[in-house]
């Protein structure tokens, strides 16, 4: 079975209004863009040496210098892979949330999943020092990522419990509960920030704005499987999310097992968002901008929207990371600032240009 059912029959005479050919082309284009961005992300940076030549040498089987090897494979490769995974998980989580909530403005940020993950991270940063030495020794550098993931996970489970009665999840209740949980997380975070010392405040600010700077093979080994597993679940959601655009009742009438589909969607978003926030902090706008842009290009069919979002989300985050690494080199700008600066105006622009399509 193909992971995504995008193997459409040859376009003999595709009916008007059928955007599947364009969708397949967009997926290919996004894949090529991601490959280009990945190579660029490995070779562009503040090191001052030409790494592209070194990369070519390495690909050709020739030996390369220790310095190039360290920069390419110990610093940039994990960071590049992390960027791809985080970008893909943010964009796909946004697309799944929007489909699930039947609202083009839904986002993990909206239902409090990111806020819960953030609270976990802040707790770990501010109170991590209070952990008994024996536990701290075990958790080590993973304290913040693990706490963020647990925060996101617990928030999702709490929301889900609040919103589910008799086996049915009310999207409206979940949305409202998400706002409440988000506000509560914000308040608790505020108290913790007030308690924090100067060094912790710096950590908090940097973490809050988001960065891929901490990417290591170790962190990748923690976050990668979780994000990968979540992304692998999304093909099974595409059909159900398509049916859900007509409403839950109609989706059910079309033979979709709506409740099971919602369960998978919520777990997927919790896993992908929790892991992404854990390793990279609060990176905004990817989950809103990418699915929006793709819907305008290829339409809202989730069989194409989800893989295209993953590929384009990864590309966008690599581009933003390259900008954040180089624009004030050798210092680094938090990547959240770059995505918000790129994403905010761009989002306004697509809203203004497409009010006709979106106003429904």
């Amino acid at each position, binding site marked *: 079975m193909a992971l995504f059912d995008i193997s459409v029959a040859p376009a003999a005479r595709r009916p008007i209004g059928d955007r599947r050919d364009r969708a397949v082309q967009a997926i290919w284009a996004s894949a090529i863009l991601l490959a280009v961005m990945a190579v660029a992300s490995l070779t562009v940076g503040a090191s001052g040496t030409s790494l592209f030549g070194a990369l070519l040498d390495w690909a050709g089987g020739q030996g390369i210098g220790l310095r190039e090897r360290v920069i390419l494979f110990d610093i940039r490769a994990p960071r590049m892979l992390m960027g791809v995974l985080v970008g893909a998980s943010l964009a796909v989580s946004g697309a799944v949330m929007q489909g699930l909530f039947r609202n083009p403005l839904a986002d993990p940020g909206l239902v409090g999943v990111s806020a819960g993950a953030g609270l976990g991270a802040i707790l770990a940063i501010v109170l991590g020092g209070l952990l008994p030495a024996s536990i701290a020794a075990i958790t080590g550098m993973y304290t913040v990522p693990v706490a963020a993931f647990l925060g996101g996970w617990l928030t999702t489970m709490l929301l889900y419990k609040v919103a589910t009665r008799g086996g049915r999840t009310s999207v409206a209740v979940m949305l409202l509960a998400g706002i409440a949980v988000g506000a509560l997380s914000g308040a608790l975070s505020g108290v913790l920030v007030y308690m924090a010392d100067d060094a912790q405040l710096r950590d908090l600010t940097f973490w809050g704005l988001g960065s891929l700077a901490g990417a290591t093979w170790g962190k990748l080994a923690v976050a990668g499987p979780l994000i990968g597993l979540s992304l692998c679940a999304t093909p099974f959601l595409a059909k159900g999310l398509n049916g859900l655009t007509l409403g839950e009742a109609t989706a059910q009438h079309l033979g979709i097992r709506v409740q099971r589909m919602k369960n998978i969607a919520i777990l997927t978003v919790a896993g992908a968002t929790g892991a992404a926030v854990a390793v990279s902090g609060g990176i905004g706008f990817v989950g809103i901008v990418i699915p929006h842009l793709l819907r305008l290009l290829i339409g809202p069919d989730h069989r194409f929207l989800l893989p295209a979002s993953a590929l384009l989300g990864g590309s966008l985050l690599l581009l933003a990371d390259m900008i954040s690494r180089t624009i004030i080199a050798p210092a680094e700008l938090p990547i959240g600032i770059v995505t918000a600066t790129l994403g905010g105006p761009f989002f306004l622009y697509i809203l203004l240009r497409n009010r006709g*399509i979106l106003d429904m």
Partner: protein
Amino acid sequence: MIDVQDISVSIAGTQILNQLSFRAGAGQVTSIVGPNGSGKTTLLKAITGELPYHGAIAFDGADIRSYSSTALAARRAVLPQAAALSFPFTVFEVVRLGLLSGLHGQSDDLPARALAHVGLAGFEGRFYHALSGGEQQRCQLARVLVQVWEPIRDGKSSWLLLDEPVSALDIGHQLEVMKIARDFADRGGSVIAVMHDLNLTAMFSNSVALLAKGRMVTQGRPIDVLTNSHLSAAYRCDVRVNEAPAAIHCLPYLLPHMASVRRAAE
């Protein structure tokens, strides 16, 4: 055959249906009529599985709750009263969603045929939300038709459950849509339609169920149900059934015949 036995439905503590029984036979158009708030849509939603109920609903002899959603989707399609889309789909893409039930594989010509059937040929590339209310209603009907394209499948009748299918339509399109329903039943399919227009109900139904205040007033042939006394009591106003010049109570028997004559002429 859908057989509803003594069902009661409460929504938020208010009893909407009270010990109501209802039958719809295969190969027939069965209409549900009654004043606002009499429970017509609630009855349909109990049958579609959207609302929990006390009592029993049997579908071809087995409890309807014993069918899986996939098995039900293969047998019946539901046209809701209002259908807002959350994302900008084209008309083609909306109608194609009817194929999600997986019955007809990827047959790409079905949406266009269904659209032509409901008078929306050439609308494939338009955006759904840019259509008028009546066009949206017919577009949704095309989607529903795509889901159960064959009136008889594997020897069993397919069902169309329509909630006010003509409420947003002009009289020309009202007739067109009712003819589609009639034609579906004439070819072996089955239709349950919640209706407001009693004239259309009389013209196109084999059986009419008259509801009032959550109870069944009576169910039977249009000529027996749509009478001055039943309608006046149910609708709480003076209703006179006009038997001349159209002699509407004859029409249910004449019309299928006339329709087949017309088809033969075409």
